[in-house]
């Protein structure tokens, strides 16, 4: 009853092609954006904004980038964290070396540099496929971290390779508080997510999906393989690079190269697997799950300690967390291999028919 498209007639091509063709979806997305932009900053406290919501949004953006590459274009990559590192360090250098550059410009430069690195390491994808490619992207992961550690120029010759992100200034106003950083992150993520949603409905997106489903067939029908694959790497790395820059400027503040290890790549990969491969919404759901789950586990272990008034050893708790986390991933894959986005889709289909079963 609530969610039904009956009676919504489309009389122009424009209406037919809009991003959210169903009126309820449009209302929902505006409500969600309004909630995120207005209500959350009012009700959220410092801890929630700085330690949970901002990293969630940033990691969702990185997951979105990986989803474009892996979910839409079908190229498995384990180098996400490396692209993020490139974005973070190049944004830092842009701020440092280009006078009066706006922060958005620095983020864009970080993203573009990451895209360039992505194209270089995407070149092998023209020859190799599948797990061979996944392992090849590991080369990117290790090489980039090594280069950042070795090339002093990148970290402005700081002795430990650690950089401190500069203060963010937008139109003359310094952004210092968690709320400002949250809003900046949210704006960038919202714009880029909408752009991604649109891009995936365009010719480019369809070419990506054709390559994913069967690249030989795609080549036969005239999709240029080299351009499509490299474009997928470039766009994906751009998203990851911007996410990395945000990670440095809006979340960490002080960045060491070790913040971008293989572990981070795997976390982002988990996000798209749990959220849903080949789904924009899935990137957000997965990021929410992976960010919130450890916090939930922590609370649970505290609750158990309080309830039985025992002191669990720290090592035991962290090992148990790893076991539960791994077990849950396996459980998720078995129960819903298409991720949380698929659950949402099923819910929507049920809602359309509700309250009738058929």
């Amino acid at each position, binding site marked *: 009853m609530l969610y039904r498209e009956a009676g919504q007639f489309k009389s122009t091509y424009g209406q037919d092609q809009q991003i959210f063709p169903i009126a309820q979806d449009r209302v929902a997305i505006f409500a969600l954006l309004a909630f995120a932009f207005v209500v959350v900053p009012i009700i959220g406290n410092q801890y929630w904004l700085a330690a949970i919501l901002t990293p969630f949004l940033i990691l969702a953006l990185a997951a979105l980038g990986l989803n474009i590459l892996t979910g839409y274009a079908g190229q498995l990559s384990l180098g996400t964290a490396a692209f993020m590192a490139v974005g973070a360090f190049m944004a830092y250098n842009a701020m440092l070396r280009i006078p009066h550059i706006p922060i958005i410009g620095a983020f864009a430069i970080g993203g573009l540099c990451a895209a360039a690195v992505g194209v270089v390491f995407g070149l092998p994808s023209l020859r190799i496929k599948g797990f061979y490619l996944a392992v090849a992207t590991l080369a990117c992961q290790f090489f980039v971290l090594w280069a950042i550690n*070795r090339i002093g120029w990148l970290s402005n010759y700081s002795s430990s390779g650690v950089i401190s992100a500069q203060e963010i200034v937008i139109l003359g106003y310094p952004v210092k508080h968690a709320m400002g950083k949250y809003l900046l992150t949210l704006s960038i993520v919202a714009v880029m997510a909408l752009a991604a949603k649109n891009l995936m409905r365009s010719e480019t997106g369809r070419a990506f999906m054709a390559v994913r489903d*069967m690249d030989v067939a795609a080549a036969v029908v005239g999709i240029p393989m080299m351009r499509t694959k490299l474009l997928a790497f470039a766009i994906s790395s751009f998203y990851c690079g911007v996410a990395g820059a945000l990670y440095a400027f809006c979340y960490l503040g002080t960045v060491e190269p070790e913040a971008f290890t293989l572990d981070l790549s795997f976390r982002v990969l988990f996000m798209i697997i749990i959220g849903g491969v080949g789904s924009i919404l899935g990137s957000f759901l997965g990021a929410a799950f992976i960010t919130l789950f450890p916090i939930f586990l922590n609370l649970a272990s505290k609750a158990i300690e309080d309830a039985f008034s025992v002191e669990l050893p720290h090592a035991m708790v962290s090992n148990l967390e*790893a076991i539960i*986390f*791994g077990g849950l*991933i*396996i459980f998720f894959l078995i129960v819903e*291999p298409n991720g949380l986005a698929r659950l949402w889709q099923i819910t929507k289909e049920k809602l359309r028919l509700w309250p009738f079963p058929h």
Partner: protein
Amino acid sequence: MNFFLEVLAGGLLAGVMYALVALGFVLIYKASGVFNFAQGSMVFFAALTFVSLTERGWNFWLALAVTLAAMVVLGMLTERIVLRPLINQPPITLFMATIGLTFVLEGLSQLLFGSQPHGLELGIPDVPIEWLSEKWNVNISQFDLFAAFVAGLLVVVLAVLFQKTRIGRALRAVADDHQAALAVGIPLQHIWTIVWAVAGCVALVAGLMWGVRNGVQYALTFTALKALPVLILGGFESIAGAIIGGLIIGASEKLAEVYIGPMVGGGIESWFAYVVALLFLLVRPEGLFGEKHIDRV
């Protein structure tokens, strides 16, 4: 020249150690098409179980037998709990499941046996062979040679298992085509259980060798990352490829470390192997001995 030879020999022997880990990957990939990321944590689990048992005063052979049994049980459980419900899923899903398994195994082994590093002794000293260093001035560790011998033995045993036995034929049939194998009456589940159990045993051997070399500690799980370039270089489906890939990677890595490393500031061993493997892949996309795939629309 002597120095070059010493580095080369050291590299080749280190390559054998990589190949030991890569073998476990190849076994599972060959028989089930699963890229088992958990191999590294299986190595860790096996080595930690063994060393904890011996430190509790267990006899060497008893500890070995119990650890072997544990690895077999682990393989069976993995097949039953993780793989069987995931039959017919795309390879990336299975790959992700094995990453989940990695977390479980790492947590489990440290929960059971603690996370402090252990030393491991197998009774073969890790010292240079005297007559070689006296006569040729080349230092080659006795233990490295032993490890190479073990790896060779393992390859022969596996080759015989795959080529000559009934189980081996079934394994190859399953690797070729799941459905055809099922159709002629090969029990897929049993085969997978066997493969995972055998991979567990290979992990134990690799864990012992690596444990003696670097101590049994959490860093053992990273041996998997060392084995990956070996794997793509040799080809996922080839046991011989694992050994030869290991030798190439080991030798080139050590040589590069000594001769190229100083030029770019050192520390290149973290990525050099991958770049070597990548260059090989550009020429042969399926690795040296991998099966050539013909794509049809």
